[in-house]
């Protein structure tokens, strides 16, 4: 990279700014205070049709301060973590706390819950990559895809590589910091036949460069994904089973987590209010998080409140075993925090896995959905209706691509109607899952 990034020096600097902000807040009258600060730096190169299109160098920083005066709270943040800026932010947060109302639930998490075990989770793997090397990788990726018969043109390939430091500190004396990295390479291609154009993409993403798929593999896969969409028709309207591709199944896990998040529950804005310890999924299905997993996408020993993270089980033998709570939402619900301020980390499911072929055979006639569009998920009612594209399945075999249809149901019914999970686990994100076969949904097409 053309910009040097000294992660250790940045870490020391941010830690000292966080301490300075805490001290300043105390001096100016805050009873308690918490600080989040971060610096990220990266390079992004995109190419299209064999030529460099953009080269982008990024460097972002930020500091966010929350102060408590009695039970009143104020927050302020800035994209500049310089000393002068820190002072302005602290003063502004205190000014706000003079106007906000008292909140009995407000305040830091209990001091006894602060993380004490802070191991290095091996999530920082910088990539000393020159612009030329980055360009070369993106070009190789695109070229492998463009070279496949039937591809008309390219919408581009991009390589991005970044690293950063984040710090969380509070007036209990807790200070946690972590350096991390993330690299990704993606490619989007266009194919055309007499019915029009289709595009699709593929990508690889990892903490460490060595864990990324080869550039050529990504390009070829993007080409295959694009080509297989040509000749798409609209499926017939009717009730039928739906098989969700692994990335889309991870989205369903995301909807579940959104509905068991403390913030949605205390606002009564969830279809899973008051469902703790009741059956939600089939008995063979369990879901938990592994925040201390070494080298994983979302690993962290402390959460957004400074609380020690832990291996939570959210669904055990099909029953909702735990909500996902921060210190604040837990107090609102009269419960204990689950160490999930900032969300769940590295969700893993436990279920008997089946091959894609076995799932298709079990489905018989229905749709395999590979793309979803739009925001038609209502977290309050669980109602689900989204635009989709994928493949028509007949007699357990993929017959032809389908597009311009919707799939609709209700998340609660879909969870209960989960009949199988694939062994095609997608490990690129922080939610690892294979395909999900749901017994019945309404498909609206022609």
């Amino acid at each position, binding site marked *: 990279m053309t910009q040097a990034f000294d992660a250790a020096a940045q870490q020391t600097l941010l830690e000292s700014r966080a301490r300075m902000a805490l001290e300043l807040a105390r001096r100016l009258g805050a009873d308690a205070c918490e600080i989040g600060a971060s610096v990220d730096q990266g390079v992004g190169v995109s190419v299209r049709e064999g030529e460099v299109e953009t080269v982008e160098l990024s460097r972002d920083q930020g500091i966010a301060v929350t102060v408590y005066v009695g039970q009143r709270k104020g927050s302020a943040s800035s994209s500049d973590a310089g000393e002068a800026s820190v002072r302005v932010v602290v003063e502004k947060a205190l000014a706000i706390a003079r106007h906000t109302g008292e909140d009995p639930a407000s305040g830091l998490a209990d001091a006894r819950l602060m993380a004490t075990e802070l191991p290095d989770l091996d999530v920082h793997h910088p990539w000393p990559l020159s612009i030329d090397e980055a360009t070369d990788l993106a070009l190789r990726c695109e070229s492998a895809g463009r070279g496949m018969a039937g591809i008309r043109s390219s919408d581009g390939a991009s390589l991005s590589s970044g690293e950063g430091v984040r710090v969380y500190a509070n007036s209990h004396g807790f200070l946690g910091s972590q350096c991390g990295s993330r690299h990704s390479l993606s490619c989007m291609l266009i194919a055309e036949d007499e019915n029009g154009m289709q595009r699709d993409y593929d990508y690889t993403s990892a903490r460490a460069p060595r864990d990324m798929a080869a550039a050529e593999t990504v390009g070829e896969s993007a080409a295959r994904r694009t080509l297989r969409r040509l000749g798409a028709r609209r499926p017939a309207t009717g009730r039928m089973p739906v098989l969700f591709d692994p990335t889309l199944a991870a989205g369903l896990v995301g909807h579940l987590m959104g509905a068991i998040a403390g913030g949605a529950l205390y606002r009564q*804005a969830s279809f899973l209010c008051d469902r703790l310890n009741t059956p939600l999924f089939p008995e063979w299905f369990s879901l938990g998080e592994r925040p201390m997993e070494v080298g994983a996408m979302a690993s962290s020993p402390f959460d957004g409140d400074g609380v020690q993270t832990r291996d939570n089980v959210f669904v055990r033998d099909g029953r909702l075993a735990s909500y996902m709570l921060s210190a604040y939402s837990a107090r609102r619900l009269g419960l204990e925090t689950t160490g999930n301020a900032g969300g769940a980390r590295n969700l893993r499911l436990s279920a008997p896995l089946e091959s894609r072929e076995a799932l298709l055979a079990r489905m018989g006639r229905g749709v395999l959905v590979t793309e979803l569009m739009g925001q038609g998920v209502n977290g309050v009612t669980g109602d689900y209706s989204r635009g989709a594209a994928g493949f028509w399945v007949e007699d357990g075999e993929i017959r032809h691509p389908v597009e311009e249809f919707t799939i609709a149901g209700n998340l609660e019914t879909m969870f209960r109607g989960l009949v199988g999970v694939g062994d095609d686990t997608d490990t690129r994100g922080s939610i690892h899952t294979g395909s999900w076969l749901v017994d019945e949904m309404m498909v609206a097409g022609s």
Partner: protein
Amino acid sequence: MTSQTHAMLDEASGLLLTPGGLDLAALDDGLGHAMGPGIDYADLYFQRSWHEGWVLEDGEVKEASYNIDGGVGVRALAGEKTGFAYSNQITADALAETGRTAAGIVRRGERRVVAPGVAMAGQARYAGVDPLTGLSAEDKIAMLKLADRVARAADPSVAQVSASLTGVHEVVLVRASDGTLAADIRPLVRFNVSVIAVRGGRRERGSAGGGGRYAMARLRDENVAERYAREAVRQALVNLEAVEAPAGQMPVVLGPGWPGILLHEAVGHGLEGDFNRKGSSAFAGRIGQRVASRGVTVVDDATLADRRGSLSVDDEGTPGQSTTLIEDGILTGYMQDKLNARLMGMAPTGNARRESFAHLPMPRMTNTYMRAGSDDPADILKSVKRGLYAVSFGGGQVDITSGKFVFSASEAYLIEDGRITAPVKGATLIGNGPEAMGRVSMIGHDMELDTGIGVCGKEGQGVPVGVGQPTLKLDELTVGGTQS
């Protein structure tokens, strides 16, 4: 150059450049670093924004936040290549470093000169005010508490009320190697109410909101707290009665205003210059051709006074303008920024927008709407034997290559024998942009713009936009309900 332009440049320069020891004259040197060998064009984009947000929950304003953001983005163009770097420091050193980095996209070629800056005299489309001042903290809290009281008093089934008041004071200054020098002060405010109503074990949400490019005090003067609180409760109560939505193809009537999100998704994105230059849009190469029914005229208009999507100048310093995209069904124009306009041999249309100094500009929509037709909205409904009447939407998405778009209804009703009957649950509508525009068969005389709530996302960048349309009938669209 008008005195107004002068005043705007002076104010922007004072807020953006002076603190780091720079002035307008120093920007020529700054640009010089970015105009390296082989660079055709370079620009500097300075920005600072002050964002304030107040949130009410459980009848109390327990949370408020303040955010300061700012810096400079430096871009260098060579042919189709773009080099980009940015810094949150606005100093001579930062300009030199980011400029050299951006210019590194090419290393050989002619060195071009920076044209002297000529202040751009655009027409102001909104007052360059700081929208956060003018109301005290007590006033802001009182507005939120009023919304809470009104919503709770409106119906006993209202179980939760949340309300928010946000405002952004944004100052930008653009200096480009083609001589562009422009500044803009862009206020943006919004008030929102969301309620949860619970009855007989059923739980539904309703929400309403709006705003624009003006001071927060106007939100109070227009009594939006009470209006949006009543509207949010009304919507939640309608949804408590909603039955399962139908599934399959049927005629769809869209209400006026916010349902214009259909145009934004089905047509708007496909007419952005970048997608058409690259040939990746379903509308590429179709200027002069029929792409919609007769009577369909769609414009993108940055010049509307005080609107959420309006721009006095865009993020490249080009004055905001009104561009007719489709006229009486014929495709007439694309939305352009400088890069894509130059490469396509067209003129920029004032549609270059970026989320912030840390993002690259792209052709984006401003306020996109369909002009009124001549049909009576009541006649439009009467013409439908069995179909869907959708009046409010959550959000939408489009695949510009295949033309497929979706949008999700948040308030909709069945039409049976020309009459509105039962409310139905939210459902996603899906169609193909060019096809759907050809199925518009009736256009109402009741054109409305939305209340000012839209955020458009493209390549990870969010920008505020407006939409609008009259009541509209599409002869056939696929409705994604659960009832066959």
